[in-house]
């Protein structure tokens, strides 16, 4: 499933796509709508008892088909505007619907002898609709019975078992031909009396067979009497009613397909066919119909496999022939819910249902915007779904924050912590690159990524050291509990709090906080000098702020900093630093003197 786009030169770029149909615009409707049905099916209650469960599954199957049909309509409309690839797509869709419908009858509904034939008749009527245009032509002409297609239409009606319509047409002919009125009456009577299986349980199969036998003999009698000898058309109809294979085969052109022939043949010779007998009639019908002139096409093989109840063969052939995974994935899932596939395990991966769903969902993920649908399919693959999702979700391009949030929500709902971290990190990096420190910090807090939070906090502190003021105050002032994520972030938050307290002239609290930042080793050592410099104005205030004990602590911090620093060179070389230290020492000593005096007097008084 590869499309090659490129110049005919040697250097080509090939666009490789795993599921080509995913990219057809009109099919997106199919994918989206069937996703809803799929989810409904997964949610549906398994415990429903036999009959109602079957009814439910049949309903689901019909829903799928109605989506396919809706899609076909859209394509017809598109094709009406401009002929193009839509034309091919419509025929693929109609083939899919044809196969699905047959599978629905045989596997999902598992129709029994009797109703089976009625279902098959519906199936043929639904899918062979050339007759419609013919009927319209005939009926719209002035005298239908004179129309050259008149008998063709009657034949088609008979072949499809649409007796009432056939009789209606015949009555027109009869009224135009009063001479042969009797003949028409007899044929009309035969067609009226033909016993058909009923959907209700009003009659048993034996009853039906008996009635049918009688009717068959009656037809036989009229044919042998030569009642219809004067009219070849009517004679051939009578032969069809008798299930004469040659007579039916003569109408090959009208039936167009071998499966139509099969159903007609069953209708007039084996109306009570059992599901398991279908394969014999199917094979012989195909052989008779094709008559060695043409070899069966893939569609024929698929339908044949279905008639043979070779479910796996159907799925296999469909996988090979169709250019999408949609069909096989959904059909297999439905059959699996019917509990028809359980015995089958693949020699690789998980079971077949899961394998096909994974393929389909992977295709969805390769699409620019259908990836969201794929998530739910992976969710319903018990064995490998999670792994696939983890691998795919990380590769969804995150163009905007909103998209990132959506991807993040998917991961968070499924406790995919690793992916959550990686997405947040990507977004944080993007924000950082765009100089949006606030955003970057928000993302790393969401990911609980301590290392990254530290990195960003350092950037904030660096900016502060350079500019002398904080940016993004609205964020830093509102860190709340998330401040505890990393030490550096805590320091950033607390340091900003110090500034606020200082700005609000709550000096005592500010001083206490400043000291705590150093003594509790929250502040990084590289920042101590800045902190001590920040203490300077507090030491120089008119009133005494640091107590004697606090002053001793401050002095110890300063000495730790100067003594503990192995790189003494730096201080000696740097005049500014030396002056700073000297000034600090001076201020500390003066403060100590003042505080001793003050504390002495306070205690003394």
């Amino acid at each position: 499933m590869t499309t090659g786009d490129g110049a005919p030169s040697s250097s080509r770029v090939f666009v490789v796509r795993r599921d080509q149909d995913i990219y057809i615009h009109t099919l997106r409707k199919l994918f989206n709508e069937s996703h809803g049905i799929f989810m409904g099916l997964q949610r549906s209650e398994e415990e429903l008892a036999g009959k109602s469960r079957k009814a439910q599954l049949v309903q689901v199957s019909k829903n799928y088909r109605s989506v396919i049909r809706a899609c076909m309509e859209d394509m017809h409309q598109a094709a009406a505007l401009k002929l193009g690839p839509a034309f091919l797509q419509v025929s693929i869709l109609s083939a899919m619907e044809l196969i699905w419908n047959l599978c629905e009858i045989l596997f999902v509904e598992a129709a029994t002898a009797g109703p089976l034939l009625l279902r098959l008749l519906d199936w043929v009527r639904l899918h062979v609709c050339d007759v419609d245009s013919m009927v319209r032509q005939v009926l719209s002409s002035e005298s239908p019975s004179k129309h050259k297609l008149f008998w063709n239409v009657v034949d088609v009606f008979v072949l499809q078992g649409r007796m009432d319509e056939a009789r209606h047409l015949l009555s027109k002919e009869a009224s135009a031909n009063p001479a042969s009125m009797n003949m028409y009456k007899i044929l009309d009577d035969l067609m009226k009396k033909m016993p058909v299986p009923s959907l209700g349980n009003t009659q048993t199969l034996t009853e039906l067979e008996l009635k049918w036998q009688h009717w068959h003999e009656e037809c036989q009698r009229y044919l042998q009497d030569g009642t219809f000898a004067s009219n070849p058309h009517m004679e051939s109809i009578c032969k069809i009613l008798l299930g004469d294979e040659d007579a039916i085969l003569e109408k090959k052109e009208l039936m167009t397909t071998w499966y139509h022939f099969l159903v007609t043949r069953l209708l007039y010779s084996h109306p009570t066919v059992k599901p398991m007998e279908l394969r014999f009639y199917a094979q012989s019908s195909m052989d008779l119909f094709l008559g060695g002139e043409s070899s069966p096409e893939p569609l024929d093989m698929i339908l044949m496999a279905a008639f043979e109840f070779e479910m796996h063969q159907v799925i296999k052939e469909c996988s090979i022939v169709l250019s999408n995974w949609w069909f096989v994935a959904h059909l297999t899932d439905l059959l699996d819910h019917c509990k028809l596939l359980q015995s089958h395990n693949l020699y690789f991966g998980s079971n077949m249902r899961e394998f096909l769903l994974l393929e389909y969902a992977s295709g969805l993920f390769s699409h620019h915007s259908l990836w969201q649908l794929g998530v739910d399919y992976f969710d319903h693959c018990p064995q490998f779904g999670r792994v696939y999702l983890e691998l795919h979700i990380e590769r969804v391009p995150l163009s905007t924050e909103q998209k990132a949030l959506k991807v993040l929500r998917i991961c968070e709902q499924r406790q995919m912590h690793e992916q959550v971290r990686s997405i947040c990190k990507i977004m944080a990096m993007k924000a950082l690159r765009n100089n949006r420190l606030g955003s970057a910090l928000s993302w790393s807090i969401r990911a609980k990524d301590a290392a990254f939070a530290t990195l960003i906090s350092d950037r904030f502190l660096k900016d502060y050291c350079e500019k002398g003021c904080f940016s993004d105050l609205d964020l830093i002032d509102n860190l709340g509990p998330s401040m505890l994520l990393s030490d550096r972030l805590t320091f950033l938050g607390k340091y900003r709090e110090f500034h606020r307290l200082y700005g609000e002239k709550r000096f005592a609290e500010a001083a206490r906080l400043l000291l705590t930042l150093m003594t509790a080793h929250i502040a990084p050592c590289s920042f101590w000098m800045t902190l001590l410099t920040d203490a300077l104005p507090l030491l120089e205030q008119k009133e005494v702020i640091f107590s004697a004990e606090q002053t001793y602590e401050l002095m110890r911090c300063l000495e730790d900093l100067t003594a503990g620093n192995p790189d003494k060179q730096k201080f000696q070389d740097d005049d500014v630093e030396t002056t700073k230290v000297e000034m600090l020492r001076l201020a500390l000593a003066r403060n100590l003197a003042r505080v001793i005096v003050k504390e002495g007097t306070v205690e003394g008084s």
Partner: protein
Amino acid sequence: MSCKGDTRTQRSRGGGPAEQTGNTAAPSRLPLFLPLPTRPATDAEPIGAGAAARRSQAEHSAAPARPGNRGQQAPPGSYKRRGRLSAAPGPARTRSRRAPGLSLRARRRAAANQRARRGAGGSGRGAGAAMEDVSAKFVSQKISRTRWRPLPAAALQPPDVFATGSWDNEDNRISIWSAGDLGNAGLNGEYHGEPHLLCDIQHNGDVMDMQFLDQERIVVASSTGTVTIFRHHQNNQTLSADHRWAKAHYHVDQDTSCGGAACTGVVCNNPEIVTVGEDGRINLFRADQKDAVRTIDNADSSTLHAVTFLRTTEILTVNSIGQLKIWDLRQQRNEPSQIFSLAGDRVPLHCVDRHPNQQHIVATGGQDGMLSIWDIRQGTMPVSLLNAHEAEMWEVHFHPSDPDHLFTCSEDGSLWHWDTSTNVSEKPSFLHQGGRSTAYLSHSTMNQSVVSAWLSNDPTKDRMEITNLIPNQTLSVNSLDVLGPCLVYGTDAEAIYVNRQLFA
């Protein structure tokens, strides 16, 4: 009746009793070998509209409580407990359909729907009346915004035209739709038509937000940072770009080829347009001026998610660290005049709307799906926190003419209708006139009830009926808009839905 037309009707009606076209051999316009049903979809259940329209109703008494004043250093993890506590007990978890959350009436109704759905078997299903109201259309593009075109002042008819914008497609589009032909109204005044496309135009980047400036012009915010005014020419049904502010939002440098930042929100008050973006910038444009009238760089250190007008000169913004800010555009200072926040939680806020009549009441929706109601006259924290959706709330809207009703939609695929009007027993409804008279009347008649409805803290008095309008949806509902009796919403499942009888 042609095959096509017939199926359409069936599908959009969302599952009325299937009309048997039977064997009348509907004529077909199609090539012979392309089978089209003679009995289209009569045996297959229509999807979409019907599924979405299944309603479940739940009544509950919301107990909006003022959140406790908590210190900044509360241990992490306590957030959850507080958040859930402050909302109503078991409030309207309609999705989970827990029995205690459902009133008796609601349960009966849900059961009836279930029955109708299952019992129908092969021949369509007995649809409830509710399903008839909603029409759906799959549009093959993920919808990020839906907006009704405003009605002219004298209009008596319900709104008909709406605009949608798509996101996350390779080729994004702005589309104008007609909600359905009035001529198609059935005998009971039901609308069977599904939305049909009037015109569309390609749009560069995801549509992040859009709003009608007037009857003809739409302002669209793009993920590329560009803000565009599109004009809808109603006489020949075309769209054209009227004016474009390229890269109104940008990261590092406005002039480089890359570096645009997504414009996340736009609000208009003709001729003024305010936009906000991921770059934390606020722009004020005038529709008739080429350059921005005012730009506030670094208005927010985090992403601004949405914006709305508080008064003509004041705007409200919400950001990704749970703050609601008021900006006075008359002041030259680049600082907000007031900051409100969700005490310490930092849950990002995604949407904001202001009560249409009482401008001090503001509703916001957050990342955790919580609905917050704020009274901006007092305090810095929300008056009530209502536990709502299970994922991001993407949009919140007061009903423009009947503000007792509020609508929210969410990433979790649900759309909730909050109705506080039930405690006022026999209040006449003006909605069906669909016009502007409603807004006028509500000032005098509804004032008292509304105050008690959205701001009251008394759990015994307060009754809020909450209806989830889409119980079974799985993908995100990104946008909704409500006008008169009509609701339109769009989803990530690439469908748009129109409900034309919201209050039926």
